[in-house]
């Protein structure tokens, strides 16, 4: 198959514009308690019930860092092939907002816990490496609710202080498609590692998107705009396309781009300037004097590295090599840790080739239709393996297998039970088959004559009749053998 060529440019009458994109992904760390306090992080709790005196910034309250969150950040860094900084510093980012109780967010500015790394994307035009600039730990803010009252804003601090990893990419992305792949890849890696659940509906993964444009072939970057807090991949793609077009339009009409923060209005599919009336942001970062420098032992990092699970890229390579999968198939199967786990469970006891097809085609179709996660699949890996084995052993045909599978999806039953109950077992007794075949031939003596005089297309007709009488259960291989034999005479 010939590779597609990259072709995402904003084309106008005069020019072709290249779009430069960098992403700041905010990924919520999976942890029981918050980054600097002992309150819970569970999603969906009643307002202000998961808030401590630290999270709500009462006078004299002090932060104490959560060991697990540090580990999660380092693990994620390792998953991104990144440099782990053994010495890092927590800073205060100062700004006023209703859902930022201390008036500052504890973050990492000049000395993040994780440095440069990279992520490999599989694009239709080949694989592409996206540079990671850094990963740092920071606190999430609370939630301002603006639509409960016309005059007031309501503040819920449950989210205040939950640990986030901010993963900053280099400006290496060039299309909405690449952004799609990149975010999905990050999410897959973090899910494999168990460091972020990647649930975008619950806000566990959000991104600020930096967009700039330049004429194709130019080396210098244009002025960028930052689109804040986009919370779905689809919206990221839309926002980038819209913003890039806006910038091109401005530039082509001789205007210039103002570096600013913008907001994506999903309903109108447009970006607009945020807080433009306010003074320029000045976060006044400085090292948080309530915290000390974070020192990590190399041995600690080595130990985490040693115990890292197999990551998607490694797994993919193994699947291709060991199981002879195509890169496409391998990609599909490793895209979720749960999928690859399912696949590996099935092939413990069943044929690989049949297994991959059944999972990718039949199972995925069902899950898609029902909107289920593979972890919620009504067909368990063991049951699917049994079904596949029933095919391999000739117990049922592929066609019957689909029928059995349908019933398995409904009932969750084990395939053999279904085969037995519904009498779907393949007819493989040569004597019985011979009886059926002879019956068909006798009933269609004229057609037998026609066949013998050269109308070989009628072979299929005989098979069809045989299958009809056997309710599809006749073993196709045996039927073939016997039928051919009979027709020779």
């Amino acid at each position, binding site marked *: 198959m010939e590779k597609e060529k990259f072709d995402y440019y904003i084309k106008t009458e005069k020019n072709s514009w290249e779009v430069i994109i960098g992403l700041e992904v905010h990924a919520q760390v999976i*942890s*029981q*308690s918050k980054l600097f*306090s*002992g*309150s*819970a992080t569970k999603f969906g709790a*009643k*307002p*202000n*019930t*998961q*808030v*401590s*005196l*630290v*999270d*709500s910034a009462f006078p004299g309250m002090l932060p*104490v*860092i*959560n*060991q*697990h*969150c*540090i580990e999660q950040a380092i693990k994620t860094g390792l998953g991104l092939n990144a440099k782990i900084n053994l010495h890092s*510093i927590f800073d205060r980012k100062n700004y*006023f*907002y*209703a859902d930022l109780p201390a008036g500052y967010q504890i973050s990492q500015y000049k000395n993040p816990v994780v440095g440069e790394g990279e992520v490999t994307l599989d694009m239709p035009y080949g694989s592409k490496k996206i540079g990671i600039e850094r990963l740092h730990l920071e606190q999430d803010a609370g939630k*301002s*609710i*603006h639509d*409960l*009252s*016309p*005059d*007031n*804003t*309501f*503040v*819920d*601090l449950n989210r205040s202080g939950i640990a986030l990893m901010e993963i900053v990419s280099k400006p290496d992305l060039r299309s909405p498609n690449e952004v799609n792949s990149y975010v999905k890849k990050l999410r897959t890696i973090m899910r494999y590692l168990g460091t972020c659940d990647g649930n975008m509906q619950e806000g566990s993964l959000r991104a600020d998107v930096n967009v700039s444009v330049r004429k194709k072939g130019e080396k210098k970057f244009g002025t960028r705009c930052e689109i804040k807090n986009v919370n779905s991949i689809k919206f990221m793609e839309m926002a980038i396309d819209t913003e890039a077009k806006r910038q091109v339009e401005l530039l082509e009409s001789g205007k210039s781009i103002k570096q600013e923060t913008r*907001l994506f209005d999903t309903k109108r599919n447009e970006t607009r300037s*945020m*807080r433009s009336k306010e*003074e320029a942001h*000045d976060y*006044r970062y400085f*090292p948080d*004097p309530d*915290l*000390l*420098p*974070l*020192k990590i032992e190399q041995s600690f990092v080595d130990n985490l590295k040693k115990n890292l699970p197999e990551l998607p890229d490694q797994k993919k390579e193994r699947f291709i090599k060991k199981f002879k999968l195509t890169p496409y198939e391998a990609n599909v199967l490793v895209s979720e840790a749960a999928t690859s786990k399912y696949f590996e469970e099935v092939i413990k006891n069943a044929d690989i080739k049949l297994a991959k097809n059944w999972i990718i085609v039949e199972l995925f179709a069902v899950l898609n239709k029902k909107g289920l996660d593979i972890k919620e699949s009504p067909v368990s890996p063991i049951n699917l393996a049994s079904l596949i084995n029933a095919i391999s052993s000739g117990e049922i045909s592929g066609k019957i297998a689909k029928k059995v599978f349908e019933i398995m999806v409904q009932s969750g039953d084990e395939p053999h039970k279904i085969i037995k109950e519904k009498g779907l077992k393949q007819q493989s007794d040569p004597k019985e088959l011979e009886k059926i075949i002879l019956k068909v031939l006798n009933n269609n003596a004229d057609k037998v004559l026609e066949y013998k005089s050269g109308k070989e297309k009628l072979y299929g007709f005989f098979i069809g009749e045989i299958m009809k009488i056997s309710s599809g259960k006749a073993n196709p291989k045996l039927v073939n053998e016997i039928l051919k034999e009979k027709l020779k005479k």
Partner: protein
Amino acid sequence: MSIDKNQVKKVAKLSRISLDDNKLQSLSKDLDSILSFVEELNKLDTKKTEPLTSIVNKTLEPRKDTINDGKIKDQILKNSPDKNEEFFIVPKVVE
């Protein structure tokens, strides 16, 4: 370096402190004299000096990831000048 009234205005805005003209005038004068007082430091060559990062000779001691706080909504909301059963209430945020 010295500071003028406009800069003080800008800093007051950043600090979210309202100042009337009188106060702005007197504070500008004070701030200017404080800033010239700290100018003294410029006499010192610190090119080769590392800044102090912490005053205690230790590093961060992390805590275990256990839930042992929260569930004190009433305490959290008790002192708020405006609240209801569940939320802090503030004047409308205008973007």
